[in-house]
C-alpha cells in the first residue's frame, strides 16, 4: 500500500494522456454503476488499483442487496487502447477530502489524466416518456467551451439552499480545479418513480456523450433494446392499472401529483418491474 494515500496499485498502467470517468454505486436509476459497468464490459478494461476502505466506510458489518452481501468497493479500471480510466466506487461516508484526494492522486500519478467526467443524477418530476436531458457543470470556462460542441445543457445556475450541502461531485470537481485538472460533472434528471430502478434511457444519454467525446466507437444498440423492453413493461403497468396511467398522464401534462399519489406510483412501478413486469 502507498505510504501516504490508502491505495493499492495492482499493476501500473501504461498511458499517454487519459480521460477519467467516475461513477458512484448509489446513484438514482443505477446511473453511476450502470454506466461504468457498461464501459468496463465494452472496453474490456483491466482493474489496476483500488482505494482501501477502512478510513472511509463504516465497516461494522456488510449490507445485503438483492440477496447478496455487499462490501464497499473503490476500484480503478483501465482501457489502454482508448486511454480511458474508469473509477467505480461507493461514495465515502467519512474523510471525504482524503478520499477524493486519493482518487486524484491515482489520476495524476498513474494515469496522466487530462480530463475528468463525474456522473451524477437528480430527481425529476417529469414522466419517463420525456427524453432524458444531460446537464453539465464544468470547473473552468475553458472546459465549458469544449462542451459547446455537444448536445448538452451548459448554463445551469445553482446555489446550495439553507440546510443543504453540496454534492460529493461538486467537492471533487472543486479539488480537481485546485489541481488544474479540467473536469465536468454530468447530471441526468431521473423520473422519481425510476429512482430505485434501472433507467436505461439515462444511461444511454450519458454513454452517448462519452462515446462521442472520447471517440470510443461503442455500439449502443443493446441499450436501445433495453430501453424498448423497459418502455414496454411500463406500458403494460399503465394498461393494467388505470390509476397509474392517470398519474403518468398527469405528469406528461406537467401536472404535479400529491405526495400520496407519488408514493403509490413509486410502489406500483417498483413492484411491477421487480416482479419481472
Amino acid at each position, binding site marked *: 500500500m502507498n505510504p501516504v494515500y490508502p491505495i493499492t496499485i495492482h499493476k501500473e498502467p501504461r498511458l499517454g494522456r487519459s480521460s477519467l470517468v467516475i461513477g458512484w454505486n448509489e446513484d438514482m436509476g443505477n446511473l453511476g454503476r450502470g454506466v461504468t459497468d457498461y464501459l468496463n464490459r465494452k472496453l474490456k478494461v483491466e482493474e489496476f488499483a483500488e482505494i482501501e476502505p477502512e478510513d472511509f466506510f463504516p465497516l461494522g458489518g456488510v449490507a445485503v442487496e438483492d440477496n447478496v452481501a455487499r462490501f464497499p468497493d473503490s476500484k480503478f479500471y483501465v482501457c489502454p487502447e482508448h486511454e480511458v480510466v474508469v473509477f467505480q466506487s461507493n461514495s465515502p461516508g467519512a474523510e471525504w477530502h482524503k478520499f477524493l484526494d486519493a482518487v486524484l492522486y491515482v489520476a495524476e500519478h498513474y494515469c496522466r489524466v487530462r480530463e475528468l467526467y463525474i456522473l451524477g443524477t437528480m430527481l425529476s418530476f417529469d414522466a419517463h416518456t420525456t427524453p432524458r436531458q444531460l446537464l453539465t*457543470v464544468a470547473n*473552468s470556462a475553458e472546459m465549458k467551451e469544449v*462542451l459547446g460542441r455537444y448536445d448538452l445543457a*451548459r448554463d445551469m445556475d*445553482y*446555489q*446550495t439552499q439553507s440546510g443543504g*450541502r*453540496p454534492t460529493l461531485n461538486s*467537492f471533487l470537481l472543486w479539488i480537481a480545479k485546485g489541481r488544474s485538472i479540467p473536469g465536468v460533472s454530468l447530471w441526468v434528471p431521473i423520473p422519481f418513480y425510476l429512482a430505485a430502478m434501472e433507467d436505461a434511457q439515462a444511461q444511454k444519454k450519458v454513454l452517448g456523450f462519452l462515446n462521442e467525446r472520447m471517440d470510443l466507437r461503442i455500439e449502443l444498440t443493446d441499450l436501445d433494446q433495453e430501453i424498448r423492453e423497459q418502455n414496454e413493461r411500463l406500458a403494460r403497468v399503465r394498461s393494467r392499472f388505470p390509476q397509474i396511467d392517470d398519474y403518468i398522464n398527469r405528469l406528461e401534462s406537467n401536472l404535479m401529483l400529491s405526495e400520496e399519489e407519488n408514493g403509490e406510483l413509486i410502489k406500483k412501478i417498483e413492484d411491477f418491474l421487480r416482479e419481472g413486469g
Partner: protein
Amino acid sequence: MGIRLYQEPHLRNPILVASWPGIGNIGIIAVDALRGVLEAEEFGEIEPEDFFYPKRVLIKKGVLEYLEFPNSKFYFKRTEAKDMIFFAGEEQPTERGRMYAEGKKAYQMANLVLDVAEKFKCRRVYTSGAAVALTHHTTKPRVWAVPNSESLVPEISGYKNTVLMSDIEGRGGHGNITGLNGLLLGVAKKRGFEGICLMGEIPVYLQGLPLSYPRASKSVLEVLSQSLKIQVKLDKLDELDREVERSIEEFYQQIPLEIRGQLDRLRHVAYAQPTEPGPITEEEQKKIMEDVEKFFKKRGGGG
C-alpha cells in the same frame, strides 16, 4: 492540513478565548459578541478541507464558481489590560453524523488551536458552552465554571454568578463537557496550559430547540469580563435576547398545561447561594425531567 496565518501580530502573553457552536450556541455567541465589541482583527485560520464537508456551492452559467467550507478563524486584540486571541469555529468537525466532535479529527483541531496559542506565548485558555439545567427562561442564567487545574478553583470561586461543578445540586463535582468546548480544556491541560470552561445555563426544555440562547451568552460574557478585567458593552446581546425571548414564549405556550405548570414552579427557584437547593425537592425535579422528556419524545426528535 494546517494553520494559515495572514500576519503574525506582536502580542504580550495573550489569553485565548475559543468556542464552537453547541446547545443554544451560548459559547459561540459570547465569543462573537466579545470580539465584535473589541473589534478584534482576523489574522489566521485552520485550513478546512480535511475537517469539514463543504457547506455551500455556487454554480453560475454551468461553471463551478465557488465551494465554501465552514470557517475556523483566529482574531487578535491588544488591550491595556490583556492581549487576546479569539478562535471561532463555525462547525465542530464531526465524524459519521455525530452531533459533537470526537475522535481523531477533534483532537487534531484542538491541538492546532493550541499550536497557535503556544506560538504567541499564550498560557491561559478559555472555552465556553452550555450547561443544561433545571431552570426557567425568565431567570438569570448562572455560569458553571470548570477549570483544568485545582489551582484555579480559588480564582473561580471569586467570580460573581458562577458555580463550580461541586456546587451544582446532585452532581457531586462530576459531569461531562461534550465536544470541542470540553476537549480543548483537556488537551490544554495535557500541554500545560491553564484552562477554564464557562458554561451558561440553558433551561432543560429549551435544549432541543433550534434557537440561540443569548441570555446565557450574556452571563458567560459578564464572567469572562471579570476574569479578564475588561469592561464591555453588551447592548447587542440584550437586543438579540429580546428577539429570541418572543420565540421562546411562543414555544412555551405550546407546552401542555400540565407540564407547563411544573415548569412554572422553576420561575421561583432563586439560587441566592450556590449550594442552596431551592424550593423544589429532588423527587419533583425528577418528575419535571420525566415530563419534559416525554413531551419532546411525543413531539418527535426533541424540537
